[in-house]
């Protein structure tokens, strides 16, 4: 990995894009970039299960919301600082995925996809009724909390910096998984699970690890997002639509590649921003996103990166 051209290319491009708002000190640039990096992290982590392992997860955002809740609860009620709360949020969701995974990854194909929808709804309904998490109204951070980070403005920059590190880490892990023996096992499961089992891939273990790994990062990002937001409530934390939009990003960029989720997230975010602000498409942006998704599935199922890599084999050296 450390000698790979494509890894350094990915790392430097992301780092450059991420440092640009810090260098220019622009707050709007930072807000735009925060959203893009957040989506890149969500899409890249989903890609580990969806792209490499071939399991459709409609409940990816559960980890984002639940991690956010755990971290928020620790910061709000127990006065933890951002760093430990973020790590606790990520570990909590990874642990949940580990437990859930050992149970529901016995299901395959469409049954697994249905179960993830069920989990999403069950968790959302549970959190909305769970009093320590504030029930249906959620929780709000006291403004004084930000004083510890040198004021609210400074806290936003800190959250951004931490997010950049988490994003680089996620993409790094995604790259490492793809080029490891573990990743080969996952891809074997994607192509033919029974054959993979016969050839000695530890199917249940590998799938559960992929699921837990894909749950770790959304949990951490959730804490950052809701720390920046200042309040958390079930409707914001568990948006089934965001799960699906993350799927669209992975598909748009190209599932099963490292660059696919990165490019897909950035493209989709820009496109959505444009559709939302353009008067013509404002109210129809969802319909356009749907049409885009359908066109990709019907005509370019490999996504932008997959198509590039197939059409111009020379690009494979640089774009993982």
């Amino acid at each position, binding site marked *: 990995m450390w000698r790979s051209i494509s890894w350094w290319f990915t790392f430097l491009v992301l780092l450059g894009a991420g440092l640009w708002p810090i260098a220019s000190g622009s707050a709007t640039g930072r807000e735009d970039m925060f959203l893009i990096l957040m989506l890149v992290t969500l899409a890249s982590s989903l890609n580990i299960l969806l792209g490499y392992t071939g399991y459709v997860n409609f409940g990816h955002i559960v980890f984002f919301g639940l991690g956010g809740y755990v971290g928020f609860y620790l910061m709000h009620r127990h006065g933890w600082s951002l760093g430990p709360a973020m790590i606790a949020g990520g570990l909590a969701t990874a642990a949940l995925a580990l437990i859930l995974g050992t149970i529901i990854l016995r299901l395959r194909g*469409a049954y697994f996809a249905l179960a993830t929808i069920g*989990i999403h709804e*069950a968790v959302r309904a549970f959190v909305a009724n769970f009093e320590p998490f504030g029930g249906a109204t959620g929780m709000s951070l006291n403004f004084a909390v930000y004083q510890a980070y040198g004021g609210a403005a400074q806290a936003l920059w800190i959250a951004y910096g931490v997010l950049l590190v988490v994003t680089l880490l996620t993409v790094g892990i995604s790259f490492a998984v793809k080029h490891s023996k573990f990743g080969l096992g996952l891809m074997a499961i994607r192509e033919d699970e029974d054959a993979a089992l016969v050839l000695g891939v530890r199917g249940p273990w590998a799938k559960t690890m992929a699921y837990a790994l894909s749950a770790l990062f959304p949990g951490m990002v959730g804490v950052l997002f809701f720390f920046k937001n200042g309040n958390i409530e079930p409707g914001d934390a568990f948006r089934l639509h965001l799960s699906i939009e993350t799927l669209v990003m992975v598909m748009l960029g190209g599932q099963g590649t490292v660059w696919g989720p990165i490019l897909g997230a950035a493209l989709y975010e820009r496109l959505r921003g444009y559709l939302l602000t353009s008067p013509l498409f404002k109210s129809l942006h969802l*319909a356009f996103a749907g049409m885009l998704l359908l066109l990709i599935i*019907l005509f370019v199922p490999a996504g932008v990166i997959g198509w590039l890599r197939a059409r111009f084999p020379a690009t494979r050296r640089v774009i993982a």
Partner: protein
Amino acid sequence: MVSPGVWIASLIDGLLLGFVYGLAAMGLTLIWGVMRVINLAHGPIIALGMFGVYLLFAHAGVNPYLGLLVIALMGLLFGILVYAIAVHRVLNAPHLSTLLATFSVNMMIIGTGTALFTTTPRNIDISLGRLTIGPVVLLGTRLLAALAAVLITGGLYLFLYRTTLGKMVRAVASNRAAAELMGIPSTRVLAFSFGLGTMLAAAAGGLIATFFPFTILSGGTYELKSFVICVLGGLGNPTGALLGGLILGALEGLIPIALPVSWVPVIEFLLFVLLLLLRPQGLLGER
């Protein structure tokens, strides 16, 4: 202590709803049974059924139950259209493709629907009186909706077992290649089956609209209920869907007596995940 009258009343109320839920789920389960596709546009199609009946009633003064016939026909045609555009090309691709293709249809309907109808709640203002038997009070609209659901289910069974086209649908469901060899135009039968599934969903939506207020987003709730019901009854099994609908309806009637209403979805979805794990073939399915 809650009196037995309340229990009975809630149970019957729930069961009446259950018939309509079962009808909606049948649309989902039929499509899965015939072509192994989970139709994620199920919810928005239910919502379209609601709006169809509503628009006919509010703007043309058509009786909702008469309007239902028109909506059923339009549901059939719409389903065939969706199949031709979004589903046919990816039918043999991995599950991910069909799931996302039908979901893209979902997004298009919701997006256009939100732009056209906004998300202000609508309701069909119709009352058919009420029937009182001891402690049990039955609303006319719910009684009639349950009756309509039973009639449509009966019609579906007659169609599937007594008509040539229905037998073709079953033949394609059991083995598409063999059916094709017997001279059955399987592509057209698949398109028709998809239409049949969306027709059931739209009809169920039309019935629900006669007693619950709704928005274009309401379909999502019933789509999730349909998943739970399909898994209860076994995916691909229409009788199971009706049974699952009744069970879910009964649960929805009875749980609020003991717990706050907001716990209903928690219990429903826990049941859903548990069933997927313990009996993915459904309550009526065979191992």
